[in-house]
């Protein structure tokens, strides 16, 4: 039987080791203990790695890195365009803030945005 490609001296040597079916000797039991310890540690390592990956994924989903500044700048520009009569900007804001968007709501949106922008300015 071939181990890992074309059979060679090393495969023959591994075959000698792996096909050993003699009764278990004390030195074999030492190896069994070493095997069990190694696999147990590897299982812990795998569990830790999977937990860390899951945690990193969850954190990435909840965090908004650098997002606020960019979004606020975009919102500021969008509001300005809406105020200037840009229909597409008004539609975008309507979609974002609800179907009942009317001229009268513009002031309320402007107030909300102004508050956000103030908060943002204070933080920076």
């Amino acid at each position, binding site marked *: 039987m071939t181990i890992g*490609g074309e059979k*060679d001296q090393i495969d023959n*040597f591994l*075959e000698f080791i792996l096909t050993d079916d003699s009764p*278990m000797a004390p*030195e074999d039991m030492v190896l069994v203990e070493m*095997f069990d310890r190694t696999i147990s*540690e*590897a299982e812990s390592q795998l569990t830790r790695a999977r937990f860390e990956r899951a945690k990193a994924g969850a954190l990435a989903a909840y965090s908004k890195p650098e997002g606020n500044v960019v979004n606020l700048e975009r919102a500021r520009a969008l509001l300005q365009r809406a105020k200037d009569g840009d229909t597409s900007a008004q539609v975008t804001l309507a979609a974002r803030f609800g179907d009942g968007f009317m001229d009268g709501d513009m002031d309320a949106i402007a107030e909300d945005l102004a508050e956000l922008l103030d908060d943002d300015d204070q933080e920076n």
Partner: protein
Amino acid sequence: MASPDVPEELLHDVEETVETFRNLPERDKANLMRAAQFLAGRGNLASPEELLSEAFIRISDGVRRWRKSETFPFFVGGVLKSLASDRMFLTDESKVKRLKQGFDVVSSDDEHKIPDSEDGKLAAKKGLIELAIRHLEVHYAGDEEMELLLMGIQDGLIGQDLQDLLGVDAKRLEALRTRLKRQIDKMAETLKEKEGAS
């Protein structure tokens, strides 16, 4: 990655593979640990535990898949063998030694990309592991029975053929095999002692 172009139906699924790994008979556990000892036994590669641990992790992550056509011990043996000369497993000190000796080590993950026909790199890679066999040959130099046993094993002889080569009966052959196994185990122990002393 390690099973390129092998249809899924020819592979055991990962969960089944990991369960088999966890529930191996003691005889197979001892044999695989000894195989790792042999592959790591020259002092310039990873420890046997590191080899086995990495094999388990790669198998659990589905990076290395078990083909239905091979026995489980031979499958893990193949993973251990390819890991044994992976550059990621060489210590910095041994990397320097390898460079001085002109070896070019290939990563096990690159292995499938290299055609067998033009494979100087794989030959060098095999050279790394063959050092373990050379070590045993030097150890048993002058001991005719053990020298013949080593040669016979490398040529793939088993059972009666091996007895005929050595001119011994089955009982004597078993005693010689046991001597060799103990020496393989000792190779790794010697390595640990050296690491502890340095």
